C-alpha cells in the first residue's frame, strides 16, 4: 500500500474513532439530525478548505481567507438588497467578489514577487478593513440588517434536513478531486508545490497557476460566505473570523502536506469533517471554546509531527536500509 493510501486510512480512522467515542458516550451523536447538522457545519469550513487545499498543494498559503469571507459576506448582503435581483445572481456576485480578492493576492505574489505568507497576511487585514468600512451603518455604528431577498434566502433552506450548502460542498469536492488528480492544472499545481524549479524546467507556467489557485480559493471563500449568509439571513462583522486557520488545520489534519506538492480534495473534506466533529462533540460534553482551541492545537501538532515521522519512514530514497555487514557496535571499539 502506498504511503498516500496509508495516510488516507489514518484520516478515515480518526473520523471513525472519534465518531465511535461520541456514539458510545452520548446518545445524541448517531442520529440523522445530528449527522446532517454536522455535514452542514463542515460544509462551511469544507468549502474554504477546498480552496485552501489548492493553494497549499501549490506550495503557498492563503492567510486572507477569513478576510475574504468577511468582505464577501458584506458584498453578498449588499447585493441581496438590490431590488429584483435573483438569488443565484447574488451568489454569483459574491463568488466574483471572492475571486477578485484572490486575483489581487495572486497578482501581488506573482508580479511583485512578495512572499505568499506576507502578502495574504496583509491583504487579509485589507479585506477585513474593507468589510468593516462597507458594512451597513446607522449613526456610524454597524448594525445587523435582516436580509429580505427571499429568493436568495432560499439557498439556506434544506431538503428534509439536507442543507443546500452540504450538497454544493460535496459536488464541488468531487469536481476538485477530478481537477486535482486528472487535469494538467492539478498536476502542475502539485509539481509547483513539490519542486518549483523542476516544474519551471518542464514548462509549467508558474504565474498562471498561482493566480488561478488564489482566485479559486477566493471564489470558494465567496461561495462559502454566500451560503452561510443565506442560512443566517444576515451577515456579521465576525463572519469568517479565524476561518483561514480552520481551513489550514483541516487540510493538515486531512493529510495535505503543508509545504505543498501533495494532497487532494478528499483529504481537505475529511479534515474539515474531523475538525467540525471535534467542535460539535465537545459542545455536547459542555466544554468551552477554550478547550476547542486546545484540542485544535493538539491535533495539528500531533498530525504534523506524525507526517514528518511518517515521510521519513516511507521516503525510500533517503532512508538507507540496514547494511548486511553491520559495523561493530560502538561499545566494542571504545577504549
Amino acid at each position, binding site marked *: 500500500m502506498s504511503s*498516500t493510501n496509508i495516510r488516507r486510512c489514518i484520516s478515515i480512522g480518526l473520523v471513525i474513532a472519534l465518531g465511535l467515542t461520541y456514539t458510545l458516550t452520548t446518545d445524541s451523536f448517531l442520529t440523522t439530525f445530528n449527522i446532517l447538522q454536522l455535514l452542514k457545519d463542515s460544509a462551511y469550513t469544507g468549502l474554504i478548505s477546498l480552496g485552501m487545499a489548492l493553494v497549499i498543494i501549490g506550495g503557498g498559503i492563503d492567510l486572507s481567507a477569513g478576510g475574504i469571507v468577511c468582505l464577501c459576506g458584506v458584498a453578498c448582503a449588499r447585493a441581496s438588497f438590490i431590488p429584483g435581483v435573483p438569488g443565484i445572481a447574488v451568489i454569483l456576485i459574491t463568488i466574483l467578489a471572492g475571486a477578485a480578492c484572490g486575483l489581487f493576492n495572486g497578482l501581488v505574489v506573482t508580479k511583485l514577487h512578495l512572499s505568499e505568507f506576507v502578502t495574504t497576511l496583509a491583504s487579509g487585514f485589507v479585506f477585513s478593513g474593507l468589510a468593516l468600512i462597507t458594512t451597513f451603518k446607522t449613526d456610524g455604528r454597524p448594525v445587523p440588517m435582516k436580509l429580505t431577498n427571499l429568493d436568495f434566502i432560499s439557498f439556506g433552506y434544506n431538503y428534509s434536513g439536507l442543507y443546500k450548502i452540504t450538497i454544493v460542498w460535496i459536488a464541488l469536492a468531487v469536481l476538485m478531486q477530478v481537477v486535482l488528480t486528472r487535469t*494538467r492544472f492539478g498536476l502542475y499545481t502539485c509539481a509547483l508545490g*513539490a*519542486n518549483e524549479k523542476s516544474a519551471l*524546467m518542464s*514548462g509549467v507556467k508558474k504565474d498562471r497557476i498561482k493566480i488561478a489557485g488564489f482566485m479559486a480559493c477566493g471564489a470558494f471563500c465567496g461561495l462559502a460566505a454566500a451560503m452561510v449568509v443565506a442560512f443566517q439571513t444576515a451577515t456579521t462583522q465576525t463572519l469568517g473570523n479565524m476561518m483561514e486557520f480552520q481551513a489550514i488545520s483541516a487540510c493538515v489534519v486531512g493529510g495535505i502536506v503543508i509545504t505543498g506538492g501533495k494532497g487532494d480534495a478528499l483529504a481537505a473534506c475529511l479534515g474539515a469533517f474531523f475538525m467540525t466533529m471535534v467542535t460539535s462533540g465537545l459542545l455536547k460534553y459542555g466544554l468551552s471554546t477554550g478547550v476547542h482551541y486546545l484540542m485544535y492545537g493538539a491535533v495539528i501538532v500531533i498530525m504534523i509531527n506524525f507526517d514528518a515521522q511518517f515521510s521519513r519512514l516511507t521516503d525510500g*530514497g533517503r532512508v538507507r536500509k540496514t547494511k548486511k555487514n553491520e*559495523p561493530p557496535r560502538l561499545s566494542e571499539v571504545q*577504549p
Partner: protein
Amino acid sequence: MTNINAEYVLQVRGIDKQFGGVPVLKNVSLDIKKGEVHALMGENGAGKSTLIKIVTGVYTKDAGTIYVEGEPRDIRSRTDAADAGISVIYQELSLIQTLTVAQNIFLGQERTKFRLTKKKEMQRSVAELIGKYTFDIDPNAEVASLGMAQRQTVEILKALRQDAKLIIMDEPTSALSAAESEKLFETIDELRAGGASILYISHRLEEVYRIADRLTVMRDGENVRVLNKDEISAPVVTKLMIGHEVKNEKMRKEANRRSDTVLEVRDLYFKDILKGVSFKAYGGEILGIGGLVGAGRTELIRCIYGAAKPASGAVLLNGSPVSRSIAKNMRAGFGLVPEDRRQEGFVPLLPVMKNLALSSYDFLAKFGFVNTKKERTFADDAIGKYDIRPPRRDLQTINLSGGNQQKVVLGKWLARSLKVLLLDEPTAGVDIGVKRELYHYLAELADAGAIVIMVSSDLPELTTVSDRILVLHDGRFFEEFTGEVSQTDILLASSGEHTEEGRAL
C-alpha cells in the same frame, strides 16, 4: 581524426571558449558513435563541464562546429539541444517527488482528452518504454518511494521519451551507493543494447573500465587522446590527465611531529560511506587527506568535529574520547573550516567583526553581555594580522571576495588556541595570492604545535602543503604518502591502484 559522418551521433570540431580572456577550451573535438558509451575524463578545470554546457546550449561557443548525425547543428539553447536529441541527466535530479513515474515522464507534455489527462494511455506508453529496455520500474510508483538509482532511471526514461539520441550523464554516481551504482551501470548496459548513445563524465576510473567503450581524456582545455576500451588502464589514463609532471617540492622542509598532541581515530563507520577508518595525527604536522569526491573525506572531517554522528568507532584526543557536541569540541580546541563556506563557514549578512568573533564569545562576553570594546579590538587584530581586505570590520562578510571570506573563516579559528584545525577544500574559489597566505597561516599553526588536517581535491595543493598524505578510497584509508609525492600517485591511489611510493594501509 574521423570524418564527419552520419554514423556518429555527435561530433564536435574545433571548439574554442574563453571566459574573460582566459581560454577554457582550445580546439576541442569529440566523436561519439551511435550506440556507444563514451567516457570523458579530466582533472577539475580540464574543461569537461564547459564542453558539456556548450553542447547542451547553456554556453555559446566562440568557435567550432557541432554535428549531429553528420549534419551541422546550431545549438544556442537547451531547447535547441533537446530538438537535436541531446539530453542531460543532471546531478541534482529534477523530478517531482510527489508525482508518479509516468506523471513525471510526461510532465509538461501530457496527453489529454476533454481536458482530462489520459492516465491509462500515458502509463501504458511508459510501461512500453520500460519494457523496451527491460528496466525494473513501476510506472505508477510515486517518485518519493524510489531509490536514487531508480530516480536516475526515471530521468533517463524522460529523456528517452523525448527521443533523445545522446544522453549525457555528469558524475551520475556521486549521489549513489555502491549497490545503486551497479544498478545504474545495468541501466546503461540496457540503454546501449537498445541503441542509445551515452556520454559519461566521471572521476572514477573503475566506473569507466566497467562501462565505457571509448574514453576521451581532456587536460587544460584540450582533448589529449581518445582511448579504445582495451587501451584504458589506470597508469595510462592518469598520465594523460596530469601530463608531464615534476614532483612538487614540499612547502615545509620538515614537520616537527610532537607526541604531546595526538588525535586518534579508530575504526570509524558512517552510513555506508566510511567503513572502518583509522589513523593518528600528531601535533606539528599538516596531514593531507586525498581521495575522490564522494570518497567520504568530508564525512570523516565532520565525524571528527562532532557535526556528524558516526555509527561506530572512536575519536580520541590525547587518549580521551572526543565529545559528540560541537560546542564542547570547540572549547577543547577544535576548529573546522567547512567545504561550503557560505552555508556553514560564516553568516553572510553579519559584518566581518561579528563573524570573526562568532566562535569566541566565550571570552568576549561576560554574563551574556558582549564586551564591545574587546570585540572590536579582537576583530581589528585579526583583520590586521590576516590582511583582510578591505580592512573594515563593519562590512557585510558576503561582500568580500572569496579569498577574503575564507580569511575571515580561518581568522575566526586562528584567534583561539587551537589544538586541531580541520579544513575541507580550504582554497576552493580562492585566488593564488591569497592561497599562499592561507598556506602560510596553516604552517604557522602547525609550527605552534597544533594538528592541521586538510582535505583537498587540488592535487598541487595537497602534495605541496601536506607533510603527510592519507588517501581515502572506498571508505577506508588506502595508502599513505610521506615525503615528496607525485600527483599521479595520489590520483592512482584515489582510484584504488597501489603505487610504489605509497605505503599500503
